[in-house]
């Protein structure tokens, strides 16, 4: 594989960029694979990469209905963090943070990881108490957390509304300085290129129509490009999980909901951190191109439409303007939507299933992007070893029936208000 560097860039620039190798091939499916990963998003690509790299399993195919990076990995707001209270979520995410820090070097692809810090704003004394508890839990798990007072926040984000008589005054906040953002497309492309170079077949525009199962064991899949046999199959299809689950005759603790995001016109640098509003659901960062990248609530009812509805956008941006009044002066450049696999406790599932050889990776709600490397790493382990790693042992499918929920927000089963 061609190595990307400043020298290869100069060399190819001088030759008019005619000699670049393709980043990944476009193979026809083989008759049989050791492992098939369904879903060529971030998690699927990362899983294939770690199967090849960590477990030396290279007879692997990724089956993608659309094109790689066209789903949620290209639709998110690029935030990376590990500011969780529960041990399972905190340790899993912090393991992922270490993978993020070395990702550009490891993949030889600049994912533009930018640890610019995330600030969760607090708007009451009670919220400050909750944040100090969460911050302490994080620090016990080795995750950096800083409790900010009003004056500290004012130094970091002076453009926020610190005026008198606002409905939700800023009392302070909880900051994870090591959190940040990355260029989401590069993550998908970087994993795809490396997986391809190790022998993984990336098969795009190939829809899974059904599964071949016999005596409780998976044998293969039926696709729009023919039948493909496999010893093991992993599902990594986010918002489409329930569609495939129906074909498998499985019912899951998951509902599919729509989440919107939007960007403003580009402006000069104003915001260094990722900031979240504490009296509602709104988050904001500034991209390297200068756009304000914003998101918030789900549209609020089951949806597979991949495009949003204006009342929710209005609601979310009203919160944004309450936090950063200057946003009201900006023009909106783009809005879009993605479909989320909302689990009943807000935490993901990475586990085996009752069908031998079938593995499940879903329930990421809208925290999937940051989890890409850790999810791929642990899912690859679960598939290769036929048992979960200790990092994803808490993300079991049966935790709902046994009562071992991981409900970080304590919202219960109303997925649409998560």
């Amino acid at each position, binding site marked *: 594989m061609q190595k990307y560097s400043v020298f290869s860039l100069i060399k190819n620039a001088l030759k008019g960029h005619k000699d670049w190798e393709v980043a990944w091939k476009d193979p026809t499916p083989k008759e049989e694979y050791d492992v098939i990963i369904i879903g060529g998003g971030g998690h699927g690509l990362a899983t294939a990469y770690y199967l090849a790299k960590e477990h030396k399993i290279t007879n692997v195919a990724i089956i993608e209905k659309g094109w790689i990076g066209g789903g949620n990995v290209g639709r998110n707001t690029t935030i990376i963090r590990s500011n969780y209270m529960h041990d399972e979520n905190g340790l899993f995410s912090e393991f992922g943070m270490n993978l993020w820090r070395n990702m550009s070097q490891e993949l030889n692809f600049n994912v533009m990881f930018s640890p610019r810090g995330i600030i969760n704003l607090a708007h009451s004394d009670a919220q400050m108490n909750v944040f100090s508890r969460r911050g302490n839990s994080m620090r016990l798990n080795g995750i950096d957390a800083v409790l900010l007072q009003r004056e500290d926040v004012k130094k970091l984000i002076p453009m926020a509304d610190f005026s008198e008589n606002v409905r939700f005054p800023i009392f302070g906040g909880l900051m994870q300085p090591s959190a940040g953002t990355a260029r989401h497309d590069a993550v998908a492309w970087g994993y795809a290129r490396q997986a391809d170079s190790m022998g993984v077949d990336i098969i795009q525009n190939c829809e899974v129509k059904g599964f071949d199962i016999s005596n409780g064991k998976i044998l293969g899949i039926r696709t729009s490009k023919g039948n493909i046999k496999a010893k093991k199959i992993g599902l990594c299809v986010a918002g489409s999980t329930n569609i495939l689950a*129906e074909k498998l005759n499985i*019912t*899951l603790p998951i*509902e599919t909901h729509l989440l919107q995001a939007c960007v403003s016109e580009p402006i000069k640098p104003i915001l260094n951190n990722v900031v979240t509003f504490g009296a509602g659901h709104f988050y904001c960062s500034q991209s390297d191109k200068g756009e304000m990248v914003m998101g918030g609530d789900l549209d609020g009812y089951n*949806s597979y439409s991949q495009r949003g509805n204006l009342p929710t956008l209005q609601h979310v941006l009203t919160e944004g303007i309450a936090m950063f009044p200057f946003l009201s002066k900006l023009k909106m450049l783009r809005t879009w939507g993605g479909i989320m696999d909302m689990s009943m406790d807000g935490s993901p599932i990475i586990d085996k299933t009752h069908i031998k050889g079938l593995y499940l990776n879903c329930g990421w709600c809208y925290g999937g992007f940051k989890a890409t490397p850790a999810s791929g790493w642990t899912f690859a382990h679960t598939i290769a070893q036929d048992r979960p790693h200790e990092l994803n042992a808490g993300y079991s499918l049966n935790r709902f029936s046994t009562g071992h929920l991981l409900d970080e927000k304590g919202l219960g089963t109303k997925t649409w208000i998560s």
Partner: protein
Amino acid sequence: MLHIKCPHCGLRSQNEFSYGGDATVKRPELNKEVSDQDWDNFVYLRKSPRGKHLELWQHISGCRQWIKVERDTLTHEIFKTLKANEEV
């Protein structure tokens, strides 16, 4: 913007309603032995179909009644609305 026809008030905009989730989920009968599996099915497991979905909404800024709505989760077309105690 969805437009939902409340069976009590007529056609109103989505802003007046609050969502209540899958209306096909049935609580296990009271005062009877309930298996763990049945309880699990009721509390956590959802079909979440792509296509026709029968769901509960509350006309919270109107008559405050709970209603049933049959809606397509892909196109958002609303096929019919019913009173909460009516079956499709």
